[in-house]
């Protein structure tokens, strides 16, 4: 919070409501989802605060902390000093990267040989190599990445985005998270104190194969469409009679409307999960037809479909990047699972003209150390909160850009450091939202995603 003497009028929510199109805040609490009567749907699309470049976000979350020096941040010095002690305290030696880097595209951004498909999109990618976060343990760092707070219960980025912009599709939730990890818990997609409509809707979880992952309550195994329609008509006639006997009540009207909406949802949503009408060429492009890409490919195709349908914030959760050991053999496997699908996602979005206003974000909760944990084939890298790389593409991010710099070993960001708060500020900025003005009054305080921090990283804007 600012340490000003009295609340700056520009920062109070009330004033903000007066001056912006985002005037639904507390109205949303009484929220009616349908655009019925005088009530404003909390999910209906809203104008951003200013013209943003992106309309939606696809966040490719890589749990565990992908190794920056093996993927995106080549360090010749590290390779030279391989084997020398780099961590006196823990007596750990530097570990060079066995993977080759090459410059790609016209921009000449450097990408590891482990990501050949992605490299073809070099000029679309915007790397931030100087990321930093607050914690070097998974749970706190992943909370920080998703909510801006490593310790406290706060709404997720996706919830803030839905709160700020609503959704463009009434048949789907505004914030969808595909196969969230059970080990991380629901806080990563929680709306915390924001209105319930802002909560992330999970599509299955990591214990369910992608093919079977779906949205809760979406289908009914026991009644067919016609039976449900007839049943719904009975419900609605009971509702209308009850309404006539009692008083006008917006909440009751809301539920009546939401039945219709839910019925539409369950009629429409399942088709997003049915990939049988995707052309073979597309399935092939993503690698949905083969191992080891099939699983991630399917999720990328789902993400593209949701993006196309106007879902505001889509997250895909991928685990397994926590390479404490055997990184030289483990990392190639992880990359092989996601490289082609991600490249295809970018390509597909581009072909459909969606990449322009879809911000694709790739990253984990932190990076890895320059020094080795374990030896020989078994060697891996430890957690590192002082340096990691994320990349963005589309949605107004500057293609072919490499922002920020780490030291000679990739151990610590030294130039143009970008904290997670800055990343959040930048994401919101690209969506046309001012991170200092997107506030929500809860328990007497105006909360925001970036708390009292955050600067937009202007250098990465196209």
């Amino acid at each position, binding site marked *: 919070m600012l340490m000003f003497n009295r609340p700056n009028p520009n920062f109070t929510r009330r004033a903000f409501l007066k001056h912006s199109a985002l005037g639904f805040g507390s109205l949303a609490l009484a*929220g009616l989802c349908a655009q019925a009567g005088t009530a404003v749907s909390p999910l209906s699309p809203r104008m951003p605060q200013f013209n943003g470049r992106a309309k939606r976000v696809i966040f490719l979350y890589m749990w565990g902390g992908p190794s920056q020096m093996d993927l995106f941040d080549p360090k010749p010095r590290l390779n030279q000093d391989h084997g020398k002690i780099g961590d006196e305290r823990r007596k750990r030696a530097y570990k060079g990267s066995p993977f080759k880097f090459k410059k790609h595209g016209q921009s000449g951004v450097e990408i590891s040989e482990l990501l050949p498909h992605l490299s073809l999109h070099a000029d679309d990618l915007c790397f931030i190599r100087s990321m930093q976060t607050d914690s070097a343990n998974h749970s706190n760092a992943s909370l920080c990445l998703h909510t801006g707070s490593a310790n406290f219960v706060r709404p997720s980025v996706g919830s803030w985005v839905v709160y700020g912009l609503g959704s463009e599709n009434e048949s789907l*939730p505004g914030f969808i998270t595909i196969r969230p990890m*059970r080990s991380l818990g629901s806080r990563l997609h929680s709306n*915390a104190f924001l209105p319930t409509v802002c909560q992330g809707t999970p599509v299955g979880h990591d214990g369910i194969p992608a093919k079977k992952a779906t949205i809760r309550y979406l289908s009914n195994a026991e009644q067919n469409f016609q039976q449900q329609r007839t049943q719904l008509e009975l419900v609605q006639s009971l*509702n209308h009679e009850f309404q006539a006997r009692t008083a006008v009540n917006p909440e*009751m009207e809301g539920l009546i409307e939401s039945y219709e*909406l*839910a019925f539409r949802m369950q009629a429409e949503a399942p088709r997003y999960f049915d990939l049988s009408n995707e052309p073979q060429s597309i399935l092939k492009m993503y690698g949905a037809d083969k191992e080891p890409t099939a699983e991630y490919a399917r999720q990328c195709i789902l993400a593209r479909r949701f993006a196309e349908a106007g879902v505001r914030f889509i997250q895909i959760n991928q685990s397994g990047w926590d390479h404490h050991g055997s990184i030289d053999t483990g990392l190639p496997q992880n990359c092989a699972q996601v490289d082609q699908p991600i490249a295809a996602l970018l390509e597909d979005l581009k072909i459909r003209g969606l990449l322009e206003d879809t911000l694709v974000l790739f990253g984990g909760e932190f990076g890895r150390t320059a020094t080795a944990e374990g030896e020989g084939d078994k060697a891996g890298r430890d957690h590192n909160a002082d340096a990691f790389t994320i990349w963005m593409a589309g949605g107004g991010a500057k293609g072919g850009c490499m922002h920020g710099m780490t030291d000679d070993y990739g151990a610590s960001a030294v130039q143009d450091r970008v904290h997670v708060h800055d990343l959040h500020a930048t994401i919101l900025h690209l969506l046309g939202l001012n991170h200092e003005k997107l506030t929500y009054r809860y328990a*007497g305080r105006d909360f925001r995603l970036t708390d009292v921090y955050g600067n937009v990283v202007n250098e990465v804007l196209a």
Partner: protein
Amino acid sequence: MRILVASITAGLLLARGRAAESKDDGFFTKEVLPIFQRHCYECHSHASGKAKGGLVMDSRSGMVTGGDLGTALVPGDPEKSLIIQAVRYGNKDLQMPPKGKLEEKQIALLVEWIKNGAPAPDQSGTGPKHDLAAIKENAAKHWAFQPLLKPRVPAVKSDPTDDISRFVQAKLEQAGLEPVGSADRRVLARRLYFDLTGLPPKPEEVEAFVADHSARAVEKLVDKLLARPEFGERWGRFWLDVARYADSNGGGSESNNTHDEAWRYRDYVISAFNENKPFDRFVTEQIAGDLLEWVSEEQRREQLIATGFLLLGPKAFGTGDWELFRLDTVDEQLDTIGKTFLGLTIGCARCHDHKFDPIPARDYYKLAGVFSSTFSVEKSKGWRQGRTWSHVELPIDPELSKTLKAAYKERLEHVKEEKPKAERELEEARKRVNELKEKKADAKEIAEAETAVQAAQRKVEFADSYPKVLPIVDPVPMAMAVRDEEKPVDEFIRIRGVPKSKGEQVPRGVLSLFGTDLTVPGNVSGRLQLAQWLVDPDQGAGRLVARVMANRIWGHMIGRPIVESPDNFGLTGQKPSNPELLDYLAAQFVEEGWSIKRLVREIALSEVYQRASADHALARATDPDNVLLWRHQVRRLDAEAIRDALLAISQQLDRKRGGSTLQQQGLVSFKSDFVTLETPSPYYRRTVYLPMLRDAIGLNQYADEAMGMLETFDFADLNLVTGARNSTTVPTQALFLMNSTLMRDQARAFARKLLENTGAGSDAERIREMFYNAYARPATSEEVQRAINYLAGFTGSDAVRSDQDYRLESWTSLCQAVLGSNEFLFLN
């Protein structure tokens, strides 16, 4: 904040600075100010609305006061001035301006200016004064902080029979409105059953009430319901909402251990409501139960368990920095105490003086000292080792304790033998598969053998994990409970909340808000003194505590609290819609010995409560939101009432009371199978008894559906203090009603009961029974006819089924429609 820091910054600086402050020989305005304006004010001035790093540079005093890193300007000493260090770019963590280094010439000008004592006119920094005195002045007038006096009951023209209604009537008359009449008896019965017990009335109960024509009929019903154990289950849950109750820690996935003994606190709360424990006593026990006298072991146990309140929050064990973690834990406790009891956002004063309420950071750290002197979390144990919060052995009969401990030891020994045994079994099972394959036995036989291998594998896995789990299964009853640290400490003010930035050390104490402080003896934490202060209506915070609780009770009964920000009674909170009524209720509450049941009873017996929810065009035109309560507020049943009512109507509800419903213990997130309950049984218990696991995903179907359902219907967030839940309408609710297994199962069970009822002669009779159970009223003949038509027109599933199946299916569909309709889901 500025005042505060100024006061703890060396007084010398200020004294020296003041002389130079008013003088400006023009050097500042001409040479220095332009540099500041161009390079600094964007992030450090009132005009820009930013004070990054806590620093404002648009006044000399602002710079002397400094920000997070301390004073930025030491007049006369450029080398000690952080401004100069920053612009020189010498320290890589402190380089300003961030966009690029100033020219050497500009740096030289700044150095010269500071060397000369940094003279600057007292013109800038003209933002509004952060003035604790001004805040205090506002606070002195703030309604919530006034002494609690029982207001005179207003004289009204059309005189209701009770005082509560007179207060409401006065407002209505002022607005020129007339209230609607009283509710239908059946409507009232349903309302009372749900409001007091959270469950629907049975048809015969409704009829008995309707048939009772005595003048005291309502009173008798209210007293009957207040005496039921379901009252505590209903009202205790409201308290669990504000106690951020949960059966696992949350706090980040790596520390999401089960709160193995939290259920004792939950049961304590339920029985406190059932026994009508005076609320002041209830508060005291939760803050300082371990420090209270006791006359029986039972009382001692109860009082220890009560302090679990302090430990139920999400604790971020993964935080690497112990001091930060410790202070975060204290912060969570203070924040909760503030919102739960006082309706104040105390937590805001951790980093600076509260901006709106009269809570200086100093007060925050006075209170923080109390909890720094209380043992809550353990440092020594690794945070993955399970329970690292304070827990104590509950006093039981010493002989029994000995027996239990011996039995536990034996079990532990026994478990060690399990693994080799299971491994042998696995080996044999594998061997058998190989043998069968070699023999080319038939597929079925091989498949069976393979299943046996899988079973043996699970046994090994279990044997592997069990010894790790067992040590946290207690040999004797334990409770989450706190105790005083052996050496109580006074806390240091942390500048801007940064643990390392220690300011003045302040004595343990309470908020200075009410003008009284307390003296905490050196050898105790001060929790007991704090608790006594909290419930003291005259000298302490009792007036506020009483108002906050009376407001919540009113809100639960009427559907809308008088103060619509029930957890924020501070200056940024909502104003009471009827302040006199609130004070009447609060004063009455205290006067009647802080009796919750009496207050609930008085409200239930008021005309206001018993009003119909009927429409009134004129009133609606004037007061569409029904703020003045000209009618009863229609509202959707809350999450647990819907769930419990579904189970009650389908007769599936397991009415067992209390006890732990966690079947496994350990890390929820790493081993979600630890809490994957394979049987639905706990999931047919009342919602209050469900395992409330924070942040859990992918539990078994029953757990997942139950928790998902609660979330969908705006249940309290398990991490946050929730004095009033939201009531939102999202399509997922309708999807739940249409498609969830829970809903389908209950509809089917309900249908089966109706069909099995041989007493009912015809389908029309069964239909009437269905409506009565769901809506607490007889069906109209049109409704009966429509239902009959619905059954007749029902087209079965594609699969060929028996007539019996078909009949059950059609009835299930009908029941689901009735249970999914507004009349069931709303309370009018």
